[in-house]
Structures are given as C-alpha cells and as structure tokens.
C-alpha cells in the first residue's frame, strides 16, 4: 500500500516547522513517530498534501523533573520511557502503559506527543495523562500556551492543537509523597487497541485519599476521566465498599461501542474489573 502523493520537508528548527505549518494550513500534517499517520496514509484514510517531519528538530526529546513537573518532550519515543531508570522507579504507571503499546519496533519510533496529539481515544497515554492531570504545551508562531489535559480532547481525532501549531511538551505535576499509580489494558493480542484500559493515580495521606485520578481508554468517543468514580474516593479512607462503588460508577459513565473486541455490556464489565484492580495496584505502589 502506497500513500497518496504529498510533498515533504524536514526542518531543522521549530520555527521553520511552524512557518511551514502556517504556510500549508489544513493541507499540512506533522510527522513525528509516524506510526499512526503513515498507516492511515497507506490506507488512504488520510491524504495530507504536505508533511512536516519534526524528527530532525533538536530539543524535543527529553524526560526530566523541573519546577515541580515531570516534563516529557513531545518527540520522546516510547522506548525512552522504558529505558529510563527514573520512570521505572518513580513513575511505573508509564511503564505499564508503554509496555503494552504495540511492539518493540513500533515503540522505537512512536512518540509520547504523537500518542496524545493523534486524539484517538484508543491510544493509551491519554488515559494515563488524565489520571495524572497533565498539562499539554502547544507551540505556535505566537509562542507557547498550556492546556490542561481535561480541555485537550475535543472529539474523534480532534484536539486543542490548531492548524499551524505543534504539541511540544507534556507536563505532569510531580505527585505528592504517598502517591502511586497503575495502568492496564486488556488487548486481544500484541499490537491491538485496548478492549478497555484503565489508569489510576492516587495519593494517600494519613489513611485518607487526598488525590485520585481515573482515566479510561477506548470506552468513549474521547479519552474519559471517570469523575464520579473519583469523587467517591476523594477525601475518604479507601475501603472495599468504596472501590466497588467507584468501579460501578466508572462502568456506568463510560460509553463504549460494540465492535469485534466485545459488546457494550462486556466492555463496561471489564472497566469495572480493571478500575478495581488498578486502584489496588496503585495503592500497593504508594510511596
């Protein structure tokens, strides 16, 4: 399968890339890891007239803690999360997610920024970022702006990133002491999208849940934060009864569609099971 014809540039600076995106407007797409975009172009689901390859732009690939945030450059490859000692020890929720994204070859190319900017509710990082209340830095010719993850996803393949802009960084508030997080998705086989996925991030202070984030993968038109489920736990001592109630609310509040991975009832039941398991796993990881 061959993509439709397009023109291509691989600028060496962010400013050049932004100028090209502005010039080509709706015709242009950003090429990062390319592992969502190129398959879509090969299938002719997408036929952009111009690709701006940002892979040669230095300074977009990093993982660092700075100013109270974990900062992840948009061009950071999945494999860099897997290979990062800091991520393994302090943010294992990313290892949970990254390990389940496609396969090693895809993770050598696929980027964190692309996984989010693609605006696909079936991707895994959005749910994790919702649970962590990440902020997304979007850069245009006028400068950078920061959008909370809760206001980032508009609809299917539609996000806060406007034509002429590039997602450049994801900022995650460094969790307080006593925090833990976990993610899991059920996939039928390696490389498949999630039948359903659940991310949970929480903080326990003197026995009370002071922070809770629950994000859901591929059970809604856009990545979904299970707010009613969070409210059950926030400010309370986490008990089995409350976990059961939270999981029930998450299952009730998501809107999966029936497809070859399962029907609505099955997927909602799966969300309920995964929410319970991920709350327990996050609690086990609290430190």
């Amino acid at each position, binding site marked *: *399968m*061959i*993509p*439709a*014809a*397009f*023109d*291509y540039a*691989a600028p060496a600076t962010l400013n050049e890339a932004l100028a090209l995106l502005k010039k080509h407007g709706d015709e242009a797409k950003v*090429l990062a890891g*390319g*592992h969502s975009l*190129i*398959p879509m*172009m*090969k299938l002719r689901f997408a036929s952009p*007239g111009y*690709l701006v*390859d940002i*892979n040669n732009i230095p300074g977009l690939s990093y993982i660092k803690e700075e100013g109270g945030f974990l900062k992840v450059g948009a061009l950071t490859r999945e*494999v860099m999360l897997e290979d990062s000692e800091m991520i393994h020890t302090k943010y294992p929720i990313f290892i949970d997610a990254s*390990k389940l994204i*496609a*396969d*090693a*070859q*895809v993770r*050598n*190319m696929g980027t964190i920024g692309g996984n989010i900017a693609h605006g696909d509710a079936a991707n895994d990082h959005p749910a994790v970022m919702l649970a962590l209340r990440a902020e997304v830095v979007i850069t245009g010719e006028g400068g950078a702006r920061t959008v909370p993850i809760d206001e980032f996803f508009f609809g299917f393949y539609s996000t806060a990133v406007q034509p002429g802009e590039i997602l450049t960084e994801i900022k995650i508030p460094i969790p307080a002491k006593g925090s833990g997080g976990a993610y899991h998705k059920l996939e039928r086989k*390696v*490389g498949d999208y999630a039948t359903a996925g659940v991310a949970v991030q929480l903080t326990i202070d003197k026995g009370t849940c002071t922070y809770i984030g629950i994000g859901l993968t591929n059970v809604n038109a856009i990545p979904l934060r299970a707010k009613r489920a969070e409210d059950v736990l926030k400010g309370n001592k986490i008990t089995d009864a409350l976990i059961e109630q939270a999981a029930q609310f998450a299952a009730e509040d998501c809107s999966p569609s029936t497809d070859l991975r399962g029907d609505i009832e099955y997927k909602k039941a799966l969300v309920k099971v995964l929410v319970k398991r991920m709350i327990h796993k996050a609690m086990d990881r609290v430190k």
Partner: protein
Amino acid sequence: MQMEKEITVTINGEAKKAKVEPRLLLVHLIREDFNMTGTHIGCDTTHCGACTVLLDGKSVKSCTILAIQADGKKVSTVEGLLNADGTLAAIQEAFKENHALHCGFCTPGMMMRATELLQKNPNPSEDEIRWGISGNLCRCTGYNNIVKAIQYASAKIRGEALPSTEPIFV
C-alpha cells in the same frame, strides 16, 4: 506538487544515493532501488515484522517509515549480518543450528529484531525474548525454536557454553 528528492542512505556500511518520491516507503527503497530482497513485505500494516531492519541501530518496521526519513541515516538489513570474515553472525548460526525457520519468510525480520534485542540485553530471560519478539509473527508456529536460537546466540555472544540444539517438538 510532489517532487523527487535525492537522499543518501548508508546501507550495510555502503553509502547509496537514490531519487525518491516522499511517499516511497523504506522497504521499497531497500527492495526495489537497492535490490536487496532479504527484507520481506508480509502484512504491510506494521503487524508482522517481516520488514524489520535496523535504522541507526534501532529495529524498526520499514513498511511504516518513509525512505526519505532514512536520509543521512544508517540502515542494516539481513544482507549485512555476516561477520567481516564471511562467517555466519552468531544470530545466523543460531537460527541455522536450532531449526529456527521453516519457510523462512519471517526469518530476516526475526534476526534483525533479535540483533537489537541482544545488543540491548545480551542475556535475556525466555520471557524477555518472547516479549521482545512479540512484534514478529511466524506463521509456521516456530516460536519455540526461534526462542531457543536467540538463547543460543546470547550464549555465543557472551562466550558461554552453547545450549543443546536438539529441536523442541510440541
């Protein structure tokens, strides 16, 4: 509209130039422009791993990368695996000795993937090997002997005693 661009790709150590349309996929550049047909096209949808090559040392699926993205980079394919003295590389010897191929279609991709796997982790566990090659499909269901071959190559690379090459029958 679209114009052909000249690129330079160092493939198995040799710098080659090509004029490409931006939409040309890396696997087609390798097979059709460079006439190296060891890299296979299986599913053409990023699933099967038959087209796996190393791009600047990292295993990638060449059906999902544009040839133009390899401009100025190094590509390694199965044709470049042989040792400098012409003997089989450890991973090739391992596949040969361990009956790790039946039809051979997945083999080049498997060996390229295993090459990076062993470079990053010279002594992987069986689980790490199985997880590590989960992006490569073998439809002759030869995984047991493929895993055994990667264990053999691992021992060979580390200079340890080679494991038995008796095939596993299941």
